[in-house]
């Protein structure tokens, strides 16, 4: 099968690494929020204060904005576009790319210096890159994770919910 079409499977222990990494980043920078997204916009993990209701939409928008910025960079023939920074009145957003697959996003306010965020984000992205590397390496059979009857159950659910 086309390796690009196979799913990315994040196992329990790796998700723990990711969470620890995000928590540390939030604490060390004094940020409000850190998010790890897949490039498709799906939220892998989010850490920080408050339970955000809008996290799904936020993930989709940030991934979209980042992907468009990259297209802009390409048009400008900028080869190495790996991070972006958006400054607001209250909140700032720093976004960094991990190996073309994941997007790390930090939301912070005036109390935090952007320089610190940049430095610590670099450390975090290196760490997350090795998590991603391990996730990609492990060739766990899909059926082992999902169970062989998953697909049939899934089809039943689709037929039930997506009815005319």
């Amino acid at each position: 099968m086309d390796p690009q079409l196979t799913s990315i499977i994040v196992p329990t222990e790796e998700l723990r690494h990711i969470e620890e990494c995000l928590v540390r980043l939030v604490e060390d920078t004094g940020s409000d929020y850190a998010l790890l997204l897949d490039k498709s916009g799906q939220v892998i993990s989010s850490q920080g204060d408050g339970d955000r209701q809008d996290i799904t939409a936020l993930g989709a928008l940030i991934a979209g904005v980042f992907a468009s910025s990259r297209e802009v960079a390409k048009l400008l023939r900028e080869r190495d576009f790996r991070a972006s920074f958006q400054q607001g009145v209250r909140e700032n957003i720093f976004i960094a790319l991990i190996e073309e697959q994941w997007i790390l996003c930090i939301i912070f306010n005036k109390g935090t210096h952007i320089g610190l965020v940049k430095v610590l984000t670099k450390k975090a992205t290196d760490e997350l890159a090795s998590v991603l590397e391990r996730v990609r390496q492990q060739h766990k059979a899909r059926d082992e994770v999902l169970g062989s009857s998953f697909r049939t159950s899934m089809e039943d659910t689709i037929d039930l919910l997506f009815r005319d």
Partner: protein
Amino acid sequence: MALINVAAREIHCKIVYYGPGMCGKTTNLRYIHSQVPKEVKGDLLSIATETERTLFFDFLPLDLGKVRGFQTRFHLYTVPGQVLYERTRVAVLNGADGVVFVADSNKSKMQENVNSLKELAQNITRQNKRFAEFPIVMQYNKRDLPKEVLAPVQTMDHFLGVTRMHWPRVEAVATVGTGVFETLRAISRAVISKL
């Protein structure tokens, strides 16, 4: 590339509605949003121009509930169809697991359909995916158009290479919902068969 989060027991899939300007992509999502049960759908997010043309994307998250212990989520997107927004389409298509290609059944739109499909093939290939193996469902929309301007299905099959590519094909009238869920079922099945 679907994302399976084993710890959180979650599966995410991204489905993108692609096609030329005004073919009815946003109409598909609006209809789905209006019909699925409350507990399944999230808010429909549309980033559009003042004239209701899609500027960036529409986004509709669907939560299918637990399937064999896994919380399953489908995220539906539309691209902006106007030629001008080619690069924006590349951005929205990033990481898609499957595509619904919405073709306009108006005879005068055949060239636009073909161009858009060619562009899609290019963009999928640029993501290092094999276009021939990529999950795609064809929707021939606006089958309610008057006979004089309605392209016959066979003509569309021929121009779009549907028979050769073995894509499932659905005839639709998105404004009233005909074929909309059949399309969604077909692409969902195609995507999970690749999980």
